[in-house]
């Protein structure tokens, strides 16, 4: 009887350990990412997130952060082809996490962010296509969770960078950023590992709209 009790306990322990393991590792990488400055540092952390994502194929968060770190990295690189290659990698991780959690607002918000990164490589030639894609993704993010502040921040950022004549500009962006700032101030992630980025950038953009 006692022996029978062991095995389930043993496995539960293992499971809890594994869970704790990925959360601890991810949390540590996230803290480092916030403090990182150079592309080399971000590359190392994107690598680390990727390792966790590869080792935890059933968890959406590691893949989400692996994608996020690569998007951040893309903005820090100089060569256009490198930036595209890094974004291709980000997209594969994002696709993985979308498969695991297809109704997650954060994933569509990140998809919108990824499309914005594509636009920034060549706004003139890509603007038309990727603006539409970014807006579609962000609208979906908003539908899935109207309280997600990142959606409004990214919508604001989208319109902020869009030329006035095709429906962008500061005036259009401002209400989105105001909403974003308001929603950031009340937003409490259910656990510290859930996405919480974007607040300071939203504030900075809003101040540029004034």
């Amino acid at each position, binding site marked *: 009887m*006692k022996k029978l*009790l*062991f095995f389930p*306990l*043993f496995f539960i*322990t*293992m499971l809890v*350990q594994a869970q704790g*393991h*990925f959360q601890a*590792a991810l949390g540590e990488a996230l803290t480092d990412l916030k403090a990182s400055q150079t592309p*080399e540092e971000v*590359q*190392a952390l994107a*690598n*680390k997130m*990727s*390792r*966790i994502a*590869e*080792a935890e194929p059933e968890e959406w968060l590691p893949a989400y952060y692996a994608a996020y770190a690569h998007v951040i990295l893309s903005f820090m690189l100089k060569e*256009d*082809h*490198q930036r*595209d*290659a*890094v974004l291709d*990698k980000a997209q594969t991780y994002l*696709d993985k996490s979308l498969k695991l959690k297809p109704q997650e607002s954060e994933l569509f918000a990140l998809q919108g962010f990824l499309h914005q990164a594509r636009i920034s490589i060549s706004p*003139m*030639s*890509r603007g*038309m*296509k990727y603006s*539409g*894609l970014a807006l*579609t993704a962000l*609208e979906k993010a908003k539908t899935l969770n109207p309280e997600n502040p990142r959606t*409004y921040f990214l*919508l*604001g950022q989208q319109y902020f960078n869009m*030329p*006035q*004549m*095709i*429906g962008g500009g500061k005036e259009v962006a401002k*209400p*989105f950023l*105001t*909403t974003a700032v308001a929603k950031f101030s009340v937003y409490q992630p259910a656990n510290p590992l859930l996405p919480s980025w974007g607040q300071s950038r939203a504030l900075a953009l809003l101040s540029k709209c004034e």
Partner: protein
Amino acid sequence: MKTFTLLSFLLLLTSGVTGAQSLLQGQVQDEAGQPVIGANVYLKGLYDGASTDETGHFKFTSKQTGPQTLVISFLGFSTLEREIDLTKTQSSLRFTLKPDYRQLQMVQISAGAFEASDEKRSALLTSRDIVTTAGATADIMGAINTLPGTQKVGEEGKLFVRGGDSYETRTFIDGLPVASPYNASVPDVPSRGRFSPFLFTGMAFSSGGYSAEYGQALSSALLLQSQDLAEESQTGISLMSVGASFSRTKRWTNTSLAVSGEYNNLRPYMALVPQRQNWLHMPESRAGSVVFRQKTSKTGMLKFYGTYTTSHLALKQSDLDHPTKAIAVDLQNQNLFLNTTYEEVIREKWTMQTGFTYTYNQEDIAAGEARVNTGTHTWNAKALMIRDLGHAVTLRTGLETQQKNYRQLYAETPAAQPRHGLVDDQNLAAFAEADVYLGQKLVARPGLRLERSSFLNQQALSPRLAVAYQLHRDGQVSFAYGHFYQTPENDYLKHHQSLRFERATHYILNYQRTADKRTLRVEGYYKRYQNLVRYNALQLQNATEFNSHGHGYARGVEVFWRDQKSIRHGDYWVSYSLLDTRRLYKGFPKEARPSFASTHNLSLVYKQMVNPIKTYVGTTFSYTSGRPYHNPNQEGFQQNTTKNYLDLSLNASFLTSIKGHSTILHASCTNLLGFNNVFGYRYSTTPDAQGQFAVQPIVPGAKRFALLALLISVNDGKEESAR
């Protein structure tokens, strides 16, 4: 109590406190011995790993024991996997990563190729450039005509490439040939491309030396790549001074469907702007189309495009042989075009592309009493397999078949016995081609294409080769060579005399330098023609004997310069082509320069965003040196030259949004400065009483052509605000 102890022990064990640690360290470098910085080195399926530092070194510890797989990966390199045994002590490890050339794409084959793409970095143009080129009036062929290698032939409106006739350029949509790429027209009324530039995301214009995948084109291939899934659901309305169109696009997650209708009529415009031609029925056309896209899997895509067009025009053309009696020419055209393609990655490294296209083209011409009714059915099927071999070779093999049934009925008068023209031809082709990266700086593309025509009862084997070598960081040289075969036109085949494939051999040398949004491209070429069709009269209608004994050559130098940097919000390109060509073909009594070939062609395209008025302005200046023509009143052949052709076109697009819906107001006008352009001269076929042949210049229908358009796209669900 005993249980508790055991449990604690187990907990301790799983926590790994008691586990021994192994140290893994080493260095990662590339083939040149340079350290690879930022590579991810880790144990497969585990967190344990590290990134390489500035010296390419990595170092990490693992509590794992036994055999493990060490993975070394970095962008632009093939991922390396190595089995290691952690029970043993690890000495310092050394790894050399091999570059993934396909992923790097450092060197590109650029000889003869001009690409317009929104995605590829190597592209020199984007599809937007095509739409916004002044003078092109949103016609793909018109915009391509500002690129080097093309000669402007105003009365035709078609593409003439490097001394080649217009039929020598073939248009392909998603790899499948288009049987009738231009709107039907009568002599001296220029035609336009049938397809809207908005249907495509990418275009590649090749003025020679193209891939073995494409056949039945002596001079040039224009490759159009259609869009994938429509981005969003929307309704599009366009109102133009020459017509209107309406489209509805619906997008689902993996499916999109677009339906559109179009009506064009030049009557109101031509009533307003005096025309030199004597129109009986001004050009009128109706078109409907369906675009369907289905994403069948993560990598699979099914595309269908179908369009049906009818058009009608009629005008009185003066007959120089009977000056008192102008001839009424009436043309009715129906064109059905269906194109389906399916692409899927079958297995890792195996991609399959298949396609099917069907065209039915019916042309009914009445010229005076004569009637010509021509109907052509064309079927095409193609299957292509792409296979990646190792990290440096991509192999493409495929099969293609074309079935053509051509029927023509010609009656000189209603009472006369009609003559039948009949051509049934089946063309079978097989091709194989490989992209081989020989190191980081050199890529070669050898290819072979075998074709057989049942009508000609002949087969032809075309070898092709293209090589590109990177000279320095921004510049590369590229060379292309190949044999190209094309079945003669139906107008000759219908006489059922012994003809062969027409043949061209291309040699192309190209230098290209791209840096900092500036591109310089210089290309020289030599092209030899063999087995061109010849016949025994100056005019085709009088010919009775046809053979394949014609020949010719074309050679030239072209320069292209594009600068998107120097002018803020501005962009310009200059292209210049120098052409020397002579040929003996058709009814030529001796070798001569054909009428479509001009020695110098220059285009200057300039575009500027004018932010204060939210307007995108484009202007195109074109210069074409005089073209030869034959004057029967003088000795010799093709002995005269027309005056130079000059044009300055302007267009402006005002971009705005009405209630958040993107709206574009577009205006364009050709030949702003009102140059009197003459394309050539037509002479009577019989001399008058004084022994002189009457003459008439070939001129545009009107000096200028102006277009006004309003394009509105209403996006579904755009009204939502920041709530």
